[in-house]
């Protein structure tokens, strides 16, 4: 398995997109921190960039990469290798190179300007989100044979998690404004890893005071150890479940 991961990482390094992505993150992080006078304001601006860019780049790049390595996978499947090992190596190679890109691009500037609990949370959330969207991309590609369709599905998934889901939640909130939905909202946020990440970081910042009563309920829940542990658990589930399903599907896929 280590050998295959090695080949995957070599291949990703040879293709320069990940390098460009790293440089882009580095440039935006340093710009944001040098523009804003207070560090926590800088973090907030950086947060909005990360929550849009990281899922988008990760899901699209992984999808295209998996389609482009169809030949490589086909070659490996006819060799004495476990299918599970091939698929998980592909995942590990992608996830680790994209997570490292994030760590260099955002982690290092954050550690320089904001080496505190908020900064650490942000790095952890960013890395987890990177891995989650690699896992989701792999699930999307294993289900669809056609490359154009697969990339379309990946873009739709990104749109759903970044925009549609929030719209849907707002719609629910307005429709049922007369009912006490605050507790329910905590459960609903677990359905979207981006929202979960956003809340985890926002609650560490002072702006959470502006989130009103729902913010207070969130703080009550996510501020506690149980809340923190369960949201971290939810994020891990977002990695494990798509990965488990895609491995299962890949195991019985005809090549």
């Amino acid at each position, binding site marked *: 398995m280590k*050998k*295959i991961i090695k*080949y995957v990482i070599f*291949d990703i390094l*040879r*293709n320069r997109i990940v390098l460009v992505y790293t440089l882009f993150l580095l440039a935006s992080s340093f710009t944001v921190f040098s523009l804003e006078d207070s560090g926590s304001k800088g973090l907030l601006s950086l947060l909005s960039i990360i929550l849009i860019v990281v899922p988008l780049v990760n899901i699209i790049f992984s999808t295209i990469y998996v389609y482009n*390595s*169809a*030949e*490589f996978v*086909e*070659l*490996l*499947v*006819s*060799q*004495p*290798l*476990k*299918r599970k090992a091939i698929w998980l190596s592909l995942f590990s190679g992608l996830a680790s190179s994209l997570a490292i890109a994030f760590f260099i691009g955002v982690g290092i500037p954050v550690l320089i300007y904001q080496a505190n609990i908020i900064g650490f949370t942000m790095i952890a959330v960013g890395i987890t989100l990177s891995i989650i969207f690699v896992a989701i991309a792999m699930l999307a590609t294993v289900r669809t044979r056609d490359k154009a369709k697969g990339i379309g599905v990946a873009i739709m998934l990104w749109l759903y998690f970044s925009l549609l889901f929030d719209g849907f939640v707002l719609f629910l909130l307005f429709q049922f404004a007369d009912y006490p939905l605050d507790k329910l909202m905590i459960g609903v946020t677990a359905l979207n890893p981006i929202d979960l990440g956003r809340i985890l970081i926002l609650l560490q910042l002072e702006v959470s005071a502006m989130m009103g009563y729902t913010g207070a309920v969130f703080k009550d829940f996510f501020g506690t150890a149980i809340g923190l542990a369960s949201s971290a658990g939810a994020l891990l589930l977002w990695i494990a479940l798509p990965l488990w399903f895609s491995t299962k599907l890949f*195991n*019985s*896929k*005809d*090549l």
Partner: protein
Amino acid sequence: MIIATNVNKQFGKLKVLDNVSTTCEKGECIALIGPNGCGKTTLIKSILGMVVPDSGVIKFNEKDIKNQWEYRDEIGYMPQIGRYPDNMTIGQVLEMMKDIRNKKTALDDDLIRAFSLPKLLDKRMRTLSGGTRQKISAAIAFLFNPTVLILDEPTAGLDPVSSELLKEKIITEKENGKLVLITSHVLSELDDLVTRIIYMQDGKLLFQKSIEELRADTGEVKLSRAIARVMTNEGA
């Protein structure tokens, strides 16, 4: 060595393998023939575990191959269309295969030398012609001294010299007691190679006969004529 029992496979509505059963033993050289789209490649891919049959059992050395992978260590596979990562060089692909197979025993690089591949090691896969890709596929299939060779249209796209070299290699390996499975449309090539014919059509295995039987039944010496005779008889 390889026993397939009632193997079925369906792609959508199309039945590609319809109750296929056969047995292949060591030292045999079996030709899988039949019209395009009759399921030859699917049968081969099922043996390799690249296609998962809907029902039926395939056994390799008495062991069911379902969800197994170790058995592929004994197989050398040459695909119909060799597809390799575009931005790797020939040398890197060969090194990677050696690295993955991790064989302790001596490698068989006869074909690498016969096809003079060492001169081309720095070429990227995407720049290669179809014939050169075929040569690489063949070289990799024979490289690890496997006991079973599965060759899907081995000579398609090869120039006459190379295809003659490959045929000689196949004969040597057959005489070394290996099992060779070949699909081909060029029946004249198979004449001095094969010991048994498996004829497939529309996913069904129509007949399997040893070459002597076939010659005796049809009274023809040439394989192409014998098959043509069988086909016209079937039609009548």
